[in-house]
């Protein structure tokens, strides 16, 4: 709001027309009656739905009530603005409010998931969960007995091995797509896109068909890591390529102009410049891999006891632990298996959240800012 426009001529003209002199207004600025109409429409539609809802839809519950309220609100809002400002403005504002409600409404399930999992997960969370395994624990023993230390160890090892396999390959593929730019750049990009669409269960079946059936290995954490690296590779490659694209061309040109060969430019200039972004890419890949369940069913199989050796024998991991406890519980609420499953889910979502926040914090540097 600029108050510098104290043109005396303007005042004279305005007063001579018999209007009050208004301060200059920004075209998009909100007036007080915008808020009045918004909250008025919200309140009136709320009371209308409150009155009618039980007669119209007695069974649909709170969710149905919310949906009806939003729909009625949009209708009332549109009618009121149509009366005040005309149909063109009414449609414009209706769309703006509708889009805003949907976008903000998307946060409702996110918050609901986080709150629900944390709430249920805290019931049976004790320090034993991190220290003990499930050896000799009956499914109906209290949920505070036993723990998931074997699953935590397994998850760490499997994701770690998957990182060691997929990060070098993924970054190399990204370097090819963005730095080398040979004839195969477009095909490679298509392959990476196609690979990122491979369903996780198919990755598991593939490892089962090759590593276990064709090469006759047993279930192991390493097989699970192989399946996970198939799922991580495209994530790492695509995110890294986006990051490499943000490295200014001037740096590459300066390095080449100083006479360094291409590999040296990539190794000593491009990759170090994009370091924080590459770390983000790796962490996002980890966040994807750590929660995958389906491929583990057919590769690491799961076990009740601690197996710290990823190369031999079935191994447990956090998502698999949750899945198996859920299956033991059979969908009933409040059983020890249910509580164990939710404690595992709580640990899992905490890991994902922490990884995600770390990725965002690192990714905030200037080269990854959009």
């Amino acid at each position: 709001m600029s108050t510098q426009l104290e043109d005396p001529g303007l005042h004279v003209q305005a007063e001579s027309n018999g209007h009050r002199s208004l301060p200059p207004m920004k075209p998009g600025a909100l007036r007080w009656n915008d808020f009045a109409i918004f909250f008025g429409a919200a309140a009136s539609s709320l009371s209308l739905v409150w009155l009618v809802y039980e007669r119209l839809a007695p069974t649909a519950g709170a969710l149905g009530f919310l949906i009806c309220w939003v729909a009625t609100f949009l209708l009332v809002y549109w009618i009121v603005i149509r009366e005040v400002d005309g149909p063109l403005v009414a449609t414009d504002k209706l769309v703006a409010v509708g889009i805003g409600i949907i976008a903000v409404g998307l946060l409702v399930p996110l918050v609901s998931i986080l709150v629900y999992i944390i709430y249920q997960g805290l019931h049976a969370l004790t320090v034993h969960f991190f220290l003990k395994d499930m050896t000799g624990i009956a499914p109906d023993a209290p949920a505070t007995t036993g723990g998931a230390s074997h699953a935590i160890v397994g998850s760490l090892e499997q994701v770690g091995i998957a990182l060691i396999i997929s990060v070098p390959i993924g970054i190399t593929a990204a370097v090819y797509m963005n730095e080398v730019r040979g004839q195969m750049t477009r095909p490679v990009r298509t392959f990476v896109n196609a690979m990122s669409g491979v369903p996780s269960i198919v990755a598991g079946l593939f490892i089962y068909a090759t590593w276990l059936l064709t090469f006759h290995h047993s279930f192991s954490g390493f097989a699970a890591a192989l399946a996970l690296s198939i799922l991580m590779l495209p994530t790492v490659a695509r995110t890294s390529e986006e990051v490499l694209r943000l490295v200014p061309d001037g740096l590459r040109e300066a390095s080449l102009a100083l006479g360094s060969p291409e590999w040296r430019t990539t190794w000593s200039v491009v990759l170090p410049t994009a370091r924080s972004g590459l770390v983000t890419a790796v962490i996002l890949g980890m966040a994807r891999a750590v929660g995958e369940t389906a491929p583990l069913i057919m590769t690491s199989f799961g076990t009740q006891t601690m197996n710290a050796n990823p190369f031999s024998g079935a191994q447990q991991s956090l998502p698999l632990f949750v899945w198996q406890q859920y299956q033991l519980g059979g969908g009933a609420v409040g059983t020890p298996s249910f509580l164990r499953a939710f404690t595992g889910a709580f640990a899992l979502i905490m890991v994902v959240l922490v990884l995600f926040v770390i990725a965002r914090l690192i990714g905030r540097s200037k080269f990854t800012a959009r």
Partner: protein
Amino acid sequence: MLLIKPPARGPGTESGEPPPVDATPGAAPASSDALGPRSISRNRTRADRIYRGLSLAGGMITFVVLFLIGLFLVIRSAAAIRVAGLRFFTTAAWPPFLTEHSQFGIAAIVYYTVEIALIALVIAVPVSIATALFIAEYAPRHIRRPLTSLVDLLAAVPSLIYGLWGFFYLQPRMIGVSAWLNAHLGFIPIFKVTEPLFRSSPFIAGVVVSLMVVPISTSVMREVFSQTPQGEKEAALALGGTRWGMIRKVVLPFGVGGMIGGSMLGLGRALGETIAVAIIISPVLVISPHILQSGGNSVAAWIALRFSESTGGLPLSALMAAGLTLFLLTLVVNVIASFIVSRSRSGSGIEI
């Protein structure tokens, strides 16, 4: 002009040197060579050739893995395909103990997979378009990044967590909505039910899967919308258009390729969704059009649920054949999606 690399860095910008200014049109190549700028030739060192070869190998590993996945699934599914033949794709049955003489096929399973994916898309596409528009056009500048992060966080939540939440928290609350839809819109065939069991329905599974689809399609659409030329937007506003008029006439037509491609990427994700669907649905093998009715299926969930009982020989081979079908289905959907995005006007500078 003397840059070693072309400065324009989009795909398909292998633009040649501009023609020499003083070359007459239609002149013989030999003479234009003599007049034009000296062409730059480079002999790469051996280290550089190794570097290029190695990175190409890194890129081609993706192709090799895709090829091997297809190859091994074909080899392992051969036994089942030999027994069932093409009827594998038209039979809606899968007995508990498969033998050489049993009738089995994935018709019902694929039917429900597609049904759940379509329900998810019907919900997710409008929500994605609205969210992408909100982030790109409506939201104040300083909340765009946090909002994008939150949508990305929705993508980072594991499928397993969605499944548990959907089964234990959302399902009891959705039953009322299902019952209402059935009571008031029951004259539409898909909302009919034969018996009032609303748990574990394709509809509830579709709603949960739609939450997993939204972040994927939103991120593609947001990228596309934010590429809309500022000049065209300002022109629409300057001609007196409202914000919605500008979006309808400029932003949406510009981003139509991205909207279609983003939706198809979401479809690919929805088709391959495993654990969440496995937790929510109760598997059936009878094709029924009633989406609110208990009972559904999905290829991925079927494989996950049946794997432990399908050891060795024919049962396993049949699961491999189902996996092969799913792999090919998602591959086709994803390749078409990235093709549409990269060929559209808006998506030419975007990688999905």
